[in-house]
């Protein structure tokens, strides 16, 4: 009984807190630009509005157009439940769960791209092509980051492997994972979540034809993904699992807030990269994670 209660509480935490992050990012951007900006809770309002709207469906699209976002959302929420939250642990933990996490993220991406291709529109095809090409590099960086944690702790279970030691390895990992976070969540300098220019979009181009509840599910899933990466980044750098529950909760919240504000600042002060330069930055993120791996591997031996 307590297990189910625990699960519901954890699910509510993820689902309800996630849409806060884009609101904070937008507030930071507005603050830097000297504007008042939209309310922090704007995404909640948008989701409520979209949920009430009807859906416009193309006659050409197969059921995949709606199934894609649904499966993608479930995959992301499942990944979130695998993610341990400091001393509270995770809802479900087993040996090798980190691999499932990576695959769930890939499944979510596959579903979004699949739904995008269903429309047969040139824009969405372009968006899907861009998304999956850059994902190849971003996934390499995540896998290198995970490997470095595995080598460092000798464990392939998320709950025990997120026990970093301070030092060069943690700094490299933080830089690498932050870059991956920006790329995976379609933030500047990889993508511009605010643009209205179809030809420059990556993620946005894929969801142009979605409307109503499916669009709400996509937007909510994206915010869960952002929160997931922020939590992963904080726990890969700070030894949260060893803290007392109140301290851990505080450190985790502060860490996620800091990551969110950093995303807002990056977005305020940097221009977007040209597409041909995106692989360079992603390769850099991959190399940072590889160096973190080397530090974890050889650094401990000395």
């Amino acid at each position, binding site marked *: 009984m307590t297990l189910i209660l625990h699960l519901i509480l954890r699910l509510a935490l993820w689902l309800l807190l996630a849409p806060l992050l884009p609101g904070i990012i937008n507030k930071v951007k507005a603050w830097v630009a000297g*504007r008042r900006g939209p309310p922090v809770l704007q995404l909640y309002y948008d989701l409520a509005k979209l949920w009430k709207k009807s859906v416009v469906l193309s006659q050409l699209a197969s059921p995949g157009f709606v199934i894609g976002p649904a499966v993608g959302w479930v995959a992301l929420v499942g990944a979130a439940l695998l993610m341990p939250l400091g001393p509270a642990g995770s809802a479900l933990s087993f040996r090798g769960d980190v691999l499932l996490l990576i695959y769930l993220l890939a499944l979510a991406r596959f579903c979004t791209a699949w739904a995008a291709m269903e429309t047969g529109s*040139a824009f969405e095809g372009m968006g899907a092509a861009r998304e999956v090409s850059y994902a190849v590099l971003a996934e390499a960086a995540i896998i290198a980051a995970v490997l470095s944690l595995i080598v460092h702790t000798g464990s392939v279970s998320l709950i025990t492997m997120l026990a970093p030691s301070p030092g060069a390895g943690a700094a490299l990992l933080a830089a690498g994972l932050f870059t991956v976070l920006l790329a995976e969540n379609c933030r500047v300098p990889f993508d511009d979540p605010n643009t*209205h*220019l179809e030809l420059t979009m990556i993620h946005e181009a894929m969801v142009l034809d979605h409307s109503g509840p499916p669009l709400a599910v996509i937007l909510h899933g994206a915010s869960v993904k952002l929160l997931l990466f922020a939590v992963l980044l904080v726990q890969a750098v700070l030894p949260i699992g060893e803290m007392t529950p109140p301290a851990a909760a505080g450190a985790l919240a502060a860490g996620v807030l800091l990551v969110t504000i950093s995303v807002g600042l990056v*977005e305020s002060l940097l221009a977007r990269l040209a597409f041909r330069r995106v692989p360079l930055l992603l390769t850099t993120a991959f190399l940072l994670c590889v160096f973190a791996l080397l530090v974890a591997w050889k650094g401990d031996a000395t």
Partner: protein
Amino acid sequence: MSSTTPFALLANATSLPWAEIPAWPAAEFVRSTATELNRGARLCAWFGVPEGAATRLVAVLAFDADNTLAVGRSHPLTGAYPTLTDTHPQAHLFEREVWEQHGLKPEGHPWLKPVRRSNDAGNAPALREFFRVEGGEVHEVAVGPVHAGVIEPGHFRFQCAGEEVLHLEIALGYQHRGIEAALAGGPHRATMNQMETVAGDTTIAHATAHASIMEALAGTEAPLRAQWLRALALELERLASHTGDLGALAGDVAFLPTMSACGKIRGDFLNLTALLCGNRFGRGLVRPGGCRHDLDAGRAAQLLERLDNALAETKQAVEWFWDAASVRARFENVGTVHPAQAADVGLVGLAARACGLVRDVRYDHPAGWHRFAQAPVAVWPGGDVFARAKVRSLEIERSGDYLREQLAAPAEGALRDELPPPAPDTLAVALVEGWRGEVCHVALTDASGRFRRYKVIDPSFHNWMGLALALRGTAISDFPICNKSFNLSYCGVDL
């Protein structure tokens, strides 16, 4: 060069009796025009004048180095004539327009299709025939006429291999309002208002060109005080548009500091125009024979003070822009138009100056107040998005300096004179350097002094081809910054 031309010479904003313009049979006329273009002239206008059942072709050329314009015409003709486009691509769109309006077919034109109208089947411009690149890996991307932003309608058809654009074709005409047709038999009561809205962001330039036409036809010119005010308003219009464009360019690469600042400063500049005449876009200021609103000393002082503030803020915002390596990386070597291409397709204004071509009507063909005071021409080599942004920032500085100088030395006297009636059977030409480039108006009067033909050429008419060329070999994701770096008018072409 121009001293030996068989064409009739005239200065900017002057007129010439229709009968004094030399005429040739069509084939010979095309040949003579080609000869003049080869000798360094530039095609400002090429249009038809109906005469009975037939049509005469008229060419207005500009000899920039000699600061003079030249006009020639053909004998009336029907049917076909040998194309000029074949050897001089700058005539490309003009010949398509003449074919559309008068049915004269340029024999050998490489891509003859309507400029604005639907085809016979009544299809919209986007449904006409487009140039296609064949190949299994080539895909076609159609953008517009309805866009995601609040902008004018126009259709863009890309032929792409992956992310690379092989070819772009632009189909306009969605905003065709029949402005030229409405002018026949004019000027009417609504004419001045229509001229102010040929392209709403170029109100002062189009209004000044039209007013100059009326003054040239009347054989007079506006009082100095009015010429001075028009020059001030023209530069304010330039400042507002250039600042807005730099902000929009920053927005397209998601560089928020400059975007936010420039959006606000553009409004400040527009408000200065409002201080001058009560309208942010300068409507109601310029009228044939002078200006309708004067600038008293108190408001002139206020204008200067607010101008200095806005210019200082612009300087800061533009510096953020140039100092950010991430911005420069997006702009440099993107959307390049080579100088030879620019000269071939006849680019004008800012887009031409960003290719290193020295083309500025204020300097080459000064009329009105620009005969007494000119701002230095801003030129930058390169032809890429960076160059076009750079020319804008240079022009902001120079227009600012120019305004400060001119505000310190106002012309005195009357604001507006009564105009004598327009001369009959006379052709007048007026060029004005709007913020995009050369605004050209040509008017021909009938025996009673009413408009027999009135031709409006917005700089965008010359420059859309430049955008198409800039996209060749560029990534399709860079289209928005290329487009914004030209920022051409749709309604100015559609008329």
